[in-house]
């Protein structure tokens, strides 16, 4: 029961945070509300026994990536007048919802057609650092290495792109 309560709580936070992201005009507000979503998602991971993911979600996502974004937002020193006007924002949003609704409905339908199984008790080691790590460095070694190269490339790319001296403003 307690777990169900937590699930509802996190869900509410996650959805409200995401809605905030979509609705707030200023990106800073959006980012803050997105952080809420990310933290709530971390909670959901925890409820799913994904200990490593829970930790990484908090540290990497909510911590590193979001702080990078917020840093950039602040770095650019965005004023109200810099923001796009977006007069018909809500009109677009409603339109967007209408367009997306069939997709959502289909996905929900698909989800609901899954065999409903009650949660089993997960094994003690499920989702632990060691277990996931072993999996990562045995079965998933090659993708892991590729991802590391990808990160390296994006690092170099970011440096090259952002480091360019843009003169023609």
């Amino acid at each position, binding site marked *: 029961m307690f777990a169900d309560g937590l699930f509802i709580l996190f869900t509410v936070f996650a959805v409200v945070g995401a809605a905030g992201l979509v609705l707030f005009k200023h990106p800073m507000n959006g980012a803050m509300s997105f952080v809420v979503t990310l933290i709530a998602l971390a909670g959901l991971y925890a409820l799913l026994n994904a200990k490593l993911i829970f930790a990484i979600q908090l540290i990497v996502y909510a911590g590193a990536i979001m702080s990078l974004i917020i840093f950039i937002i602040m770095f650019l020193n965005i004023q109200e007048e810099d923001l796009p006007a977006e007069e018909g924002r809500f009109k677009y949003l409603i339109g967007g919802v209408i*367009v*997306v*609704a*069939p*997709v959502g*409905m*289909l*996905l929900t*339908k*698909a989800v609901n*057609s899954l065999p409903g199984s009650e949660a089993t008790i997960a094994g003690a080691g499920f989702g632990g650092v060691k277990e996931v790590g072993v999996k990562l460095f045995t079965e998933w070694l090659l993708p892991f290495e590729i991802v590391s190269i990808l990160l390296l490339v994006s690092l170099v790319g970011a440096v090259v792109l952002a480091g360019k001296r843009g003169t023609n403003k």
Partner: protein
Amino acid sequence: MEHNVTFLGYIPILPLIGAAVLGLLHVGTCTRKPIHEKIYGVFACIGPLLSFVLALRVFFTLKGMPEEARYLTQEAFTWFQVGDLNISMGFLADPLSSLMLLFVTLIGSLIHIYSIGYMSGDKNFGKFFAYLNLFLGSMLVLVLGDSPVVMFVGWEGVGLCSYLLISFYCEDTDNVLAGNKAFIVNRIGDLGFVLGMGFLFWAIGAQGFDFMSLKANAHVLAPGVALTVCLLLFVGATGKSAQIPLYVWLPDAMAGPTPVSALIHAATMVTAGVYMVARFSFIYAHVPLAGEIVAWVGILTALLAAIFGMFQDDIKKVLAYSTVSQLGYMFAGVGVAAYSAGIFHVFTHAFFKALLFLGAGAVIYAMHHEQNIWKMGGLKKKMPKTYITMLIGALALAGCPPFAGFFSKDEILFSALATGHYGIWIVGVLVAGMTAYYTFRMIFVVFHGEPRDQEAYDHAHEAPAVMTVPLIILAVGALCAGFLNLPAIFGGHQQVSHWLAPSLTEHHPHASLFVEIIAIGASVLAFVIGIRAAYKRFGAGAEEPQFQGFAKFAYHKFYVDELYDAVFVQPYKRIGDAIRKTIEPSVTDGPVTLAAKVYMIAGAAFKVFQVGYVRVYALYMIIGLSVMSLLLSQSLN
């Protein structure tokens, strides 16, 4: 008796080699220092003279054979062979072709010699003789070819050479146009020849497509096919021999140098059509209707050309129309199945027409390339040799007994009368009178009376010996050739007809003495009336007449050239232009352009969706996804 010989091929090849040598010499040197004319002259005359010698050898070899098996053949190599079609590069000399050979090589050689004088000083001296040799070689291939296809080689070859020689003075557009006209009109005839060969081949050619096999198989030809073949071949003949409706090129062909006119348009090339019809006599003889058509076309051409000839003021044009007219006689002859008479007229005509042309050439040469007879006059005193020889030629042409033309023309008219072609005979006699009239009109105006252009007259002089000697030889021919076929009424034996008999399929008409006398009497009467009329009008000098009414119409040749231009040439060009300007871009290329245009329009339409905003592209994706979702959720239910 051995019929296969090896020397036949040399007859056409020698002039052809001459042509190649001269041509290469000319091409190699003409932009630098030209070679001396004498070298060209010697090279040019070797080939024709040797060919003449060989032609004599052929003649005497044939003479030594029994009459019913007089032929020589030479099969050089298989030319092409596809399925049933087997054409060998072969030559055939029978009495018919040997006669042709003799006078073609003889007159050809004489014209070559004459040209050395006439063309001297021309910067394209070498080229001229190369063409002349090529022409003679082609003509000999035509005469000697043992199958229609080999004959066609020569047939087209002379067409080409006439083009080259007529447009010889090629800096002048008119001359080139005349050359083009000759070649194209000849080609129209050639189409008939080719199609005729095609029909003939599919009918009886599978057993062999040479003349001997064709002759042997001719009896199996269905009458309809035979008529088609005859008429198509006759179309070819009208092209080459300048008959209605394809005669228009010949008068224009006078644009070439005068010896060319003599060689091509009098003595040899134009006779090819008559020769061809005689060659195919084994088919024509079976189809009287075809002969009838040939005869009528021929005699009408003779009439038409004689009318034109009466009103021309260019000395060469007069002669040109007289040629067309005489060719009409020949066709009338072969048309009424008097093949030997037709060929005999070819033979005599070659002498006196070459003579007249060469004489005219001498006059033109003397008058510094003046061709209008109304600028001449009284030349008799200045150029006696030319005058005498040309007078002989004119008498022969006009049909004065006992000159060559009289016998041959009379033979044709007699045959027409004896076979019951009275219409043809009447027109023929009428034309004979007109011939006498316009021939002597020319002679009187040019040689008699007072000089009309004193300055030109003062400079006029007799031609050099290299030109007059051929004239004299030809004059002897024009004088005596007729006796070779002296009819029985004059105590002769018709040697030429007998000589030709094995080659031809003809039946000599048997007519009473009375008919024969009527024919001769009418011809002589026509001649006398014609010459009297000419003398009355022009004998003592006359001024250039102003043509009115019908005369003007005839002077302008009934506006046939203009008619052809308006009916065929201009529409052809206009169609070409129309295709280039409108039909090609809009009609044939239309669908292609349309496809491209539709594509472009569609592109422009779809371009609207390419707004450039990333999120709109995302929206498209999502819309697509949504539609798919809707469809899928339908199926999930």
